[in-house]
């Protein structure tokens, strides 16, 4: 159904992964590959274990009464099905993924190999400390490095993601104020903040006060001052902010917030920009969460697992979730094979009376922490500074190339690791941000984050990261400029995009109005859930 004119050419570095798939029959559901009696699994026969009659082992009423309808497939079916699904998915391993605020950098494979070692993957979290000294040493050394990089005192690894870290940090701030008999109700966030910020604030039992950005895209100091009082528990901010701009007045912000007894919270989503170059602790931040799946290059996994460790200043350390790793024995280093000195013993300290308590069932996403530690070792301190430098260089270079055709959301430059364009001009020509995004898919690139931050009209938020080459950036810029030219002459083809992806544009409103959230066998009575009251999704920011 495609013709040569309608199919955009692929640029160098563009991924031809989906070309020609449009007419292909989509891969069936695994349930639709099922055939009664087929199977992939096998189990030992029990090797002499006495038979048990479940009818006597379990009381009636507790026993399963109907089959659990899992698919019945051979191992070959299974492998082909998921391999074909993999072929219908874009990824960093395939191509450029410039999602703003998401830091989709390359994920080193040595980290994967390390995390898969049985000495990490096959560890039970309830094993006593003497059996897991290597794991605890890793956590202690990673904590030390994160404290160095943030300029703060102590960390917890329980939070499984950034938003989880936010909640943990806000509960710590809550505990801090309560311990001083000074309970507070409000948390201030900028209008450009990530959506997780206000949601976490509510979950931690605070009310949200939003403060507007200044015309140059930074915190408006006067507006901030107006909303600050002794009922403010914290000010929560990303730096560089979601416009990719460094808050150069941050020391003054800290002074104002601390002046009313509030705590300063650092959302680490954009930490990649200042890694080793500047430290939140030195800027006056009291609490920092880091997204190791962004800054420390652990794979995003299609939406997790991540890791959102929280690092805090000395005065908040007692409130961290228990247990924490502590090190007993002689100080210093220089043990055998580069390990800690003889007599060193790492253990969990659960005796933390001021702790807010657990936020994870065990030790957080340890496997992700192993990968982050591998990344830390590979780069070293000097390498991490280089990460920030190249990330910022890449962003500014790409912005320079794109600024001929696209407006910048806020005029301030240089930007740090990312920037926000506005497709305002293209919208006037008939191509919205979403159309530009879909046009990029046809040109073999993942689009930037669209419609976020909310304060920029038709926002396109671009974060190239440091692992992309000059050739990739140029190739992407060519595609973006071509789309701008297309919009200027005739925007209509962009409305049809994508035409080369495995599927065309989706009816997202229908998905919400007639909710089908699981598969049912054709013989099933129609149990599809639907709620006609739904008004359909609004424009959605994506990050």
């Amino acid at each position, binding site marked *: 159904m495609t013709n040569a004119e309608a199919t955009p050419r692929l640029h160098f570095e563009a991924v031809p992964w*989906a070309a020609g798939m449009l007419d292909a029959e989509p891969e069936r559901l695994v349930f639709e590959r099922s055939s009664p009696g087929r199977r992939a699994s096998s189990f030992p026969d029990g090797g002499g274990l006495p038979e048990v009659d479940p009818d006597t082992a379990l009381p009636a009423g507790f026993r399963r009464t*109907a089959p659990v309808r*899992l698919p019945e497939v051979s191992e070959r079916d299974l492998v082909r099905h998921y391999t074909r699904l993999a072929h219908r998915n874009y990824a960093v391993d395939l191509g450029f993924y410039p999602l703003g605020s998401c830091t989709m950098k390359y994920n080193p494979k040595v980290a994967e190999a390390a995390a898969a070692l049985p000495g990490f993957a096959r*560890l*039970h979290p309830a094993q006593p400390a003497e059996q897991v000294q290597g794991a605890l040493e890793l956590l202690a050394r990673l904590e030390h490095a994160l404290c160095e990089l943030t300029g703060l005192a102590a960390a917890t690894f329980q939070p499984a993601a950034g938003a989880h870290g936010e909640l943990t940090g806000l509960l710590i701030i809550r505990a801090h104020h309560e311990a001083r008999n000074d309970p507070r109700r409000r948390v201030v966030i900028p209008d450009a903040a990530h959506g*997780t910020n206000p949601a976490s604030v509510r979950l931690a039992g605070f009310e949200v006060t939003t403060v507007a950005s200044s015309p140059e895209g930074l915190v408006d100091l006067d507006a901030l001052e107006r909303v600050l009082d002794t009922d403010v528990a914290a000010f929560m901010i990303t730096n560089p902010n979601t416009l990719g701009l460094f808050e150069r007045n941050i020391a003054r912000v800290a002074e104002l917030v601390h002046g009313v007894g509030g705590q300063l919270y650092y959302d680490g989503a954009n930490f990649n920009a200042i890694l080793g170059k500047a430290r939140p602790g030195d800027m006056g931040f009291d609490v920092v969460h880091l997204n190791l799946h962004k800054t420390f290059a652990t794979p995003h996994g299609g*939406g997790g697992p991540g890791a959102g460790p929280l690092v805090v200043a000395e005065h908040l350390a007692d409130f961290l979730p228990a247990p924490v790793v502590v090190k007993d024995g002689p100080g210093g280093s220089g043990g055998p094979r580069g390990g800690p000195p003889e007599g060193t013993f790492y253990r969990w300290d659960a005796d933390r009376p001021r702790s807010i308590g657990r936020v994870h069932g065990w030790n957080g996403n340890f496997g*992700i922490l192993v990968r982050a530690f591998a990344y830390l070792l590979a780069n070293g301190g000097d390498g991490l500074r280089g990460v920030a430098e190249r990330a910022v260089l890449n962003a500014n*270079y790409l912005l*320079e190339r794109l600024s001929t055709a696209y407006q910048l959301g806020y005029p301030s430059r240089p930007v740090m690791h990312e920037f926000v364009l506005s497709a305002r001009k293209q919208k006037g020509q008939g191509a919205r941000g979403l159309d530009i995004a879909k046009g990029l898919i046809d040109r073999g690139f993942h689009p930037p984050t669209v419609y976020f931050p909310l304060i920029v009209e038709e926002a396109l938020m671009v974060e190239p990261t440091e692992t992309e080459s000059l050739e990739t950036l140029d190739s992407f810029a060519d595609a973006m400029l071509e789309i701008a030219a297309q919009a200027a002459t005739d925007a209509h083809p962009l409305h049809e995009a994508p035409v080369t992806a495995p599927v065309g544009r989706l009816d997202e409103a229908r998905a919400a109005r007639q909710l089908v959230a699981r598969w049912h066998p054709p013989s099933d009575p129609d149990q599809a859930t639907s709620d006609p009251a739904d008004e359909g999704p609004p424009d959605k920011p994506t990050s």
Partner: protein
Amino acid sequence: MSYQPHTSEDVDRMLAALGLDDVDQLFQPIPSDLRAPADLDLPRPHAEQEVAAELGRLAARNRHLDELTCFLGAGVYDHYVPASVWYLAGRGEFATSYTPYQPEMSQGVLQALFEYQTLISELTGLEVSNASLYDGASAVAEAATMAVAATGRSELLVSAAVAPRVRELLETYSQGLDLKLVEVGALDGRTDLEELRDRAGDQTAGVLLAQPNFFGVVEDVAAAAELAHGAGAKLLVSFDPLTAGVLEPPGRLGADIVVGEGQGLGNHPNFGGPAFGFLACDPADVRRLPGRLVGQTVDSTGRRAFVLTLQAREQHIRREKATSNICTNQTLNAIAAAVYLAWLGPQGLEELGQLCLRAARYAADRLTRIPGVRLAFPDQPFVKEFAVRLPADPAEVGRRLVDHGLLAGLPLAGLAPGLEDGLLVAVTERRTRADIDRLADAMATVLADLGAGQAQGGAGGPVAAGDGRREGEGVGR
């Protein structure tokens, strides 16, 4: 080792395009007094082989479950992970992708999650599953929030037979929520339904049980559902999905929200994470569902396709009015679970449950033949985990059994009042008769060495013997 592709010529060209001489000029917005010190105490850069060697050294300092035969469970279990699971889930197209916000180029992850949701729905007996949560414990807190929102009430009755870690997490989460936790005691290892009846009232938003519970005991979910519903409350059940081959899914017994830890579904123990939590509910509660949800729709040519849906619930749209703050979840672990369940199939699920049941009952039988070792709750049904009382300090017994290459289980001292002499033993399908015999023989030897349990009936341990049925009373109160 650096992962940046820039040659020095590249850097020069890029700087020239920007009209700059030095990359540091781009950091001019950072005031000079806020620049990081140059002497941070960080590792030097390492070559890849040095990274591999150092991580190998650290891994070798851990005694993992291929070295020690594992009878330790308490929420994380040594179930077999088939080779195909991470061969597939670990593929770069899944592992190195972001949240599928651009559905046209993310159908692989979206379809895998749609299949995952269907599988979780089948296992739990409830219609709608989200696309995963952080872990089983935080999933319980999300379920509690849902119950509060659904009922407009704030009290959660929590069984003392729910794992202590989960109850600790609930305490933490409740600090910021309008959520009051009220404990319901356990009687003979099982939630005290009489006490539940007394405590459930017009303030009760929900009732929380675990199935099987922390002690491995199978609960009467149907009876609890009746009591919860009688008070106008929701029944929340934390369910071990690996028991679904032999136990009736809680959703079919009246549970309104079923959550759980998904680690056993194709995920390695990973020292506690990453694995994932799941959450399933009735369609009536879908507006309050936390986290991501994949729905089916059609594309512009009418073909079936999948997309993240009902995003109006989520934090990036609703901000402070969102149903939860969940953004990044545990998608890849959920995909691994989908692969695992398709590998398992209905027969496999049933055989797995049967094998656990047989192995656990054999283990209970062998262990209780050791003088002084008794089941903590001899009259209660269990599937793969049970508590025994030992005639010596379980922590010390456990330490000595490590010398026999065995991880005997979880000592219960400090975790369950009245069970200071308790050891929680988990037996999965991976444990053979020979493994169990080895545990029983070694435990007998260790107890004999400790001079414990010589006399039939078990006197001589730190806790006086008594009638098995009565001993469980008050546990967890």
